[in-house]
């Protein structure tokens, strides 16, 4: 129900609420409910035993830390790409813009195959990296590379539309008032794009947590060392142990959901802060 304080000027509350609830319920919540019901079939001790086994904990560590590193890489790279693509005009800009979505268009298995071929000791990159002691394939670095590659578009595409809409007259005004480029960026641009940037990072992180196809190609899949949670889930499914698979999936989902919830709250708080400051 709408909050009493908000002025209900704009139309469409009922319609959009109806469409959203119908869709969210049918497409997202109902399947997740089915998973939770599967989980309900097992007792709490059994649930705890599965999600806290040594192998599972090792898998969380490798998955979460790799997703974290991948997200940092994508935050920096994504911001750079979005900035360059929206702010500068240079030959090949359109092509670069088009290429950003490539990692999404490739089936993840192909992405994994491409990466593992590039980083093989005879591969285009591996032949230069391996002699210098940089081994990517079948190490955590490979997992990070696969996660980062498959989620490149998130930050770029989240920041890009907002950056395009940043009020340039505001920047021009600041410039005439003697503000430096850096001041303009930190005071005007950064606060505007921050919610989108965080949103992109979170999606990138969440996607990395669940990434399977590309990672299994390059990870080595050695239990306790380079075995990610998604692979463990896949193994449990192959053992026809649906409950265990659902339990592990639930952990991934819960972490992703809490991250989303926290950052969305943060973004909302930040937006209000900016609005108040404006």
């Amino acid at each position, binding site marked *: 129900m709408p909050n009493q304080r908000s002025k209900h000027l704009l139309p469409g509350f009922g319609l959009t609420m109806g469409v959203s609830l119908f869709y969210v319920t*049918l497409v997202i919540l109902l399947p997740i409910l089915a998973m939770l019901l599967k989980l309900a079939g097992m007792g709490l001790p059994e649930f705890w035993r599965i999600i806290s086994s040594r192998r599972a904990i090792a898998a969380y560590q490798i998955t979460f830390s790799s997703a974290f590193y991948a997200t940092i890489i994508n935050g920096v790279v994504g911001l750079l790409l979005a900035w360059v693509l929206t702010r500068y005009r240079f030959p090949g800009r359109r092509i670069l813009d088009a290429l950003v979505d490539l990692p999404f268009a490739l089936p993840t298995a192909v992405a994994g195959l491409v990466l593992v071929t590039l980083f093989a000791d005879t591969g285009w990159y591996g032949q230069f990296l391996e002699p210098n002691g940089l081994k990517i394939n079948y190490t955590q670095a490979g997992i990070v590379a696969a996660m980062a590659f498959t989620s490149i578009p998130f930050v770029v595409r989240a920041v890009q539309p907002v950056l395009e809409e940043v009020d340039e007259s505001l920047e021009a005004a600041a410039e005439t008032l003697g503000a430096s480029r850096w001041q303009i960026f930190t005071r005007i641009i950064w606060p505007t794009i921050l919610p989108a940037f965080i949103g992109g990072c979170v999606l990138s992180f969440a996607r990395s947590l669940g990434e399977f196809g590309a990672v299994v190609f390059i990870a080595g899949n050695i239990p*306790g060392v380079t075995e990610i949670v998604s692979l463990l889930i*896949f*193994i449990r499914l192959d053992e026809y142990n649906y409950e265990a698979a659902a339990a592990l999936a639930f952990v991934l989902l819960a972490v992703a959901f809490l991250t989303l919830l926290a950052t969305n709250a943060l973004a909302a708080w930040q937006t209000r802060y900016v609005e108040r400051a404006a």
Partner: protein
Amino acid sequence: MNKLLLSAAAALALVATPALAQPTDLLNASYDIARELFDEENAAFIPAYQAANGVAVTINQSHAGTSTQARAILEGLPADVVTFNQVTDIEKLVEGGFVSADWQSEFANSASPFYSLPAFLVRAGNPKGISDWGDLARDDVSVIFPNPKTSGNARYTYLAARAWANEEFAGDEAKVVEYLTKVFLNVPVFETGGRGATTAFAERGLGDVLITFEAEVLSAVSLLGADKYESVVPSVSLLAEFPVAIVDKVVDSRGSRDLAKAYLDFLYSDDGQRIAAGRNHRVNNETVAAEFADRFPEVRLVNVDEAFGGWAKVSEEHFAEGGLLDQVFVNQ
């Protein structure tokens, strides 16, 4: 709300499956690397069936890992027949009431029209001199086989290695475990499927030896070049069956039992066996086996029943979570 959702789901379900009297199509759910084999079998079966029955039929193929396939059938994939490379996955269909419990007596050779065995693929000239299972535990040997947790192929490898070790160490379990642990430590990467392992070995040059089905080893040699690879058959190996079954629940509701039976029978016919042997599978048909004798060296085979007391026991003791496999694989 629930009612609304249900009717919405019903409205969305565009595809209904009415039970036809005499279907002329058949769905064969098979393992993931069998596409070319069954392309060839189907191309031979269709005219043979038409000649005998005057009906042109369509054979549809679905390929994936056999656990995935069994799961899909349990959840409603309308496969009339299964042609797997794992006995245990058909047993899952038995448990679910989709396949009758005596399926192994419905067709010859325990319902396995052809068979294979774990064998070795090494680089040309066999530079590391790998000839038997014992060599896999050497410190200077890097071994490639897929993840036994996700690949049936690798489960056969594990069992074959264990069968050899049981004989070698006269049943001394501590030594067997030590040997197997060493072998697993020599594996740099566990691909999720058999073909992935072959690609890692061949395309990326990983490992000194690839262990996979002999059928795969021989295909790799002929496809990728006899100048680059050669096959090694160990002193003893494990019989790897490729079991087939009629999915009773599906054929009974579709009325396709006769066609399904004719299809699986065809795999046992001379023509069907010749195609399988041509694709490097060993067959029991004596005429065809003689034709292809020079392709398959003599090897001593043990089977799961003799060596391990049957698949049910193997699943429980070795492959279940925390089982004997996990002891040598997970607790490295």
